[in-house]
């Protein structure tokens, strides 16, 4: 099933903290905290699942043209990160879930008919 950023927010019991819906659907899911690794993935419209809360994550997401970023464990988000997300127009979602749970739930959503 097509997953938009609002579906991501709902599925992960999260909140959209910054950035706005860009109308792009999840094309691929990358769960990674190493930004150098994230840069290796050539997929389009990546939803980036991470435990790292810094504006560097948003810069990385912008470089690869990610459709959204999710930060886990309710980790406090630096304001600079939110600002960067607003500047680049990248939806930034915060969820209380652990990344493992997010993976499972997102896959479950995407697998729906």
């Amino acid at each position, binding site marked *: 099933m097509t997953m938009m950023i609002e579906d991501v927010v709902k599925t992960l019991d999260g909140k959209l903290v910054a950035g706005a819906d860009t109308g792009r659907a999840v094309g691929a899911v990358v769960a990674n905290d190493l*930004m150098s690794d994230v840069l290796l993935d050539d997929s389009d419209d990546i939803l980036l699942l991470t435990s*790292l809360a810094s504006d560097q*994550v948003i810069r990385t997401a912008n470089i690869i043209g990610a459709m959204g970023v999710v930060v886990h464990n*309710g980790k406090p988000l630096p304001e600079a990160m939110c600002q*960067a997300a607003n500047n680049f127009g990248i939806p930034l979602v*915060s969820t209380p879930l652990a990344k493992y749970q997010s993976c499972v739930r997102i896959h479950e959503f995407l697998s729906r008919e």
Partner: protein
Amino acid sequence: MNDYQPTILPADAGQKDDDIMAAHSLTGTKESPLVILEMLQRLRVRDVMKADGVVSVVRSDTLHFAQNLMKRNSISGVPVLEEGRLFGIVSVNIIIKALEGGYIQDPCHKHMSTSLVFLEEGMPLALAIKYFQNYTFGRFPVLDKDRKFVGIVSQRDIMRAILKELAEELARYEGKKPAAATVPFGEVSTSAYTMQQYPVVHNDLQNAGRAANEIKRLLAGAGVDKKIVRRIAVAAYELEINIAIHSVGGTLTFILDGQKVTIIARDRGPGIADIEWALRDGTSTANDWVRSMGFGAGMGLANSKRVSDKFEIKSVVPSGTTVLCEFNLKKD
């Protein structure tokens, strides 16, 4: 709706997003005459000489053969070289005399000029320029400290190197002026030329990545194909992070020239002793602090090579590393 409330930390005082880049553009500016003097002292003959593909003859070649070589390559002199040893130079004047005297079929060693003036590769450019002023030669052979031939340098090579360095300095002065950002990118816009240079500060992971994002913005604004923009941005980002993590500091230079984009990452040390090793996936000397920031997985160089159409790396311990990545904007 759920009742989950995300936490947002207030920004640190003085960490205004846009100011940081602007402040960086101002660091390291100098008085302009000093810039040129410093440049002439800093640049060495080896930095500007032609080292690869130098056209040469051997002693037994005929002057006629040398004449043809010079004609074909539009050069005014050719070194007589055997196994790295320089025996002499055959210049246009020698060829003219040979044609007049009717001995153009003679071997080079009979008439070549052997009272040679040469430059050493480690000489500063300032000294090389004095040589050009004091002698009438159009070019000088360059020897290393063991008197082996390593290249040739002409006035044109020096002029080109100085202009290139000056352009980089100028780009740095101008900082992030957006003037060139909106250069339209039509099929025929071969005159589109933009150059930006960004300083990258050691261990400043807070700001590393800004230059790459700025480059991405410039390219997207110029209407470059999205996939190519992403490849260029990835390379720029990897190289920028690399300078911040591994070097004492340096610059990231972005050149948009017609249908080609070049990213040059240059740092001031400490250099890479084993480039093959550094290019391997998963190779890293990053410390735990860097890793905790999500970097230092050791794929930066390999990844920037992967996305580039052309990749070159040169490194000297301890003076520094230069990486060049080229991208063709034209899809073929």
